[in-house]
């Protein structure tokens, strides 16, 4: 003890850092195993909807070429083979437990509507996955807002820009924007025939052509000394 007290403060701190570093060899920061479900916490997440990703956001991420998330398609194999969102991986809900997902990544789930992804969200949360998100409205909404969005009729300058953006985005993903006629609830295609959903690209799309999109500037984290 006397020898330790004879050390300078810096030397004591260095010794402490060394011991803590040595201890780190035997621990893992991400503890697996038993996970307790906290209903109040889950309820708060559900209510605040912070577990949702919108189709607009997802389309932006794909077009920007972001790689900081995993997109999981929960539908059956046939539906996945027919069409899936670019970059999506196929994991049926029954195999989710064995899927090669780690807790250290952002996972976005989608199914046709929202029910299966909500159930899968709960399964993953219960297994201790924290970064799990649901694509709001699922593939149905993706189809309605990204692949075949309805354009404003007789647009002003703001809507015209929006129309342009939606049209470019739809084409980027192999879809086609539509316009809504008068009082008709059914939108009709702009072109002679819309590209069928099955024709949409099934692999990750390349970088968008210049001017094809003007995604809203994302909040960037400020870092540095």
């Amino acid at each position, binding site marked *: 003890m006397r020898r330790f007290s004879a050390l*300078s*403060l*810096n*030397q004591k701190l*260095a010794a402490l*850092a*060394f011991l*803590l*570093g*040595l*201890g*780190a*060899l*035997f*621990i*893992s*920061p*991400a*503890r697996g195993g038993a996970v307790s479900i906290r209903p109040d*916490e889950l309820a*708060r*997440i559900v209510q*605040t909807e*912070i577990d949702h990703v919108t189709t607009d956001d997802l389309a932006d991420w794909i077009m*920007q*070429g*972001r*790689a*900081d998330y995993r997109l999981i398609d929960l539908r059956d194999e046939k539906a996945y083979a027919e069409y899936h969102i670019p970059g999506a991986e196929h994991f049926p809900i029954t195999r989710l437990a064995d899927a090669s997902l*780690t*807790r*250290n*990544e952002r996972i976005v789930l989608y199914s046709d509507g929202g029910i299966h992804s909500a159930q899968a969200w709960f399964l993953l949360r219960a297994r201790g*996955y*924290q*970064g799990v998100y649901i694509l709001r409205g699922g593939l149905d909404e993706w189809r309605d807002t990204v692949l075949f969005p309805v354009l404003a009729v007789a647009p002003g300058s703001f809507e015209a820009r929006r129309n342009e953006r939606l049209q470019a985005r739809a084409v980027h993903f192999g879809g086609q924007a539509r316009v809504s006629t008068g009082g008709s609830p059914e939108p009709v295609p702009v072109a002679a025939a819309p590209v069928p959903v099955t024709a949409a690209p099934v692999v990750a799309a390349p*970088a968008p052509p*210049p001017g094809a999109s003007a995604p809203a500037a994302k909040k960037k*984290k400020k*870092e*540095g*000394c």
Partner: protein
Amino acid sequence: MNAPFFKYGMFGDETSLVIAFAIGIGFGFFLERAGFGSARKLVSQFYLNDLAVFKVMFTAIVTAMLGVTYLGWLGVLDVSLVYLTPTYLWPQIAGGLILGFGFVIGGYCPGTSVASMATGRVDGLAFALGLPAGTFVFAELFPWLKRFFLTGDFGLRTLPDVLGLSHGLVVFLVVLMALGGFYGASVLEGIFGTGDAPDDARQ
């Protein structure tokens, strides 16, 4: 209660800004107390006669790393929700070089320039005004820079992934690297030092 609090929705954007402001003030205070409000002190690391910047920054890295590791192990912090900067290799190398050149020429990096301005230094003020000006120019040029901005996309990479080592082993190696670096810095200060370095640096 689990961290990170913001991601669990325990407070909103407004509260997070207030907390960020408080943390920023604290950060600036400690930068100033470490002597980093002075450009002379900061650039002397490039002349190898005072490596306080290296030591303070590496100490911060080791402290944060050990804190994250142990809090994650205790279950207080969910490491999987801690923000990781995606790797865009080439633009990040370019950005690092630009920042480095600016640091050598002017003597400040962004945080220290604000700390310096707060102490009334005019050169710090010039730097702090240059920050929003540079941000504005970058934003205006972004359409032309966008293609380069997204090159070298490696996604979210961590040292354990890249090196294929366990998290604990990487932590241990970084601690060893820091301790070796501190010792080496003291030796360099002994050789190149002007004699006004703090006492502990010459031990």
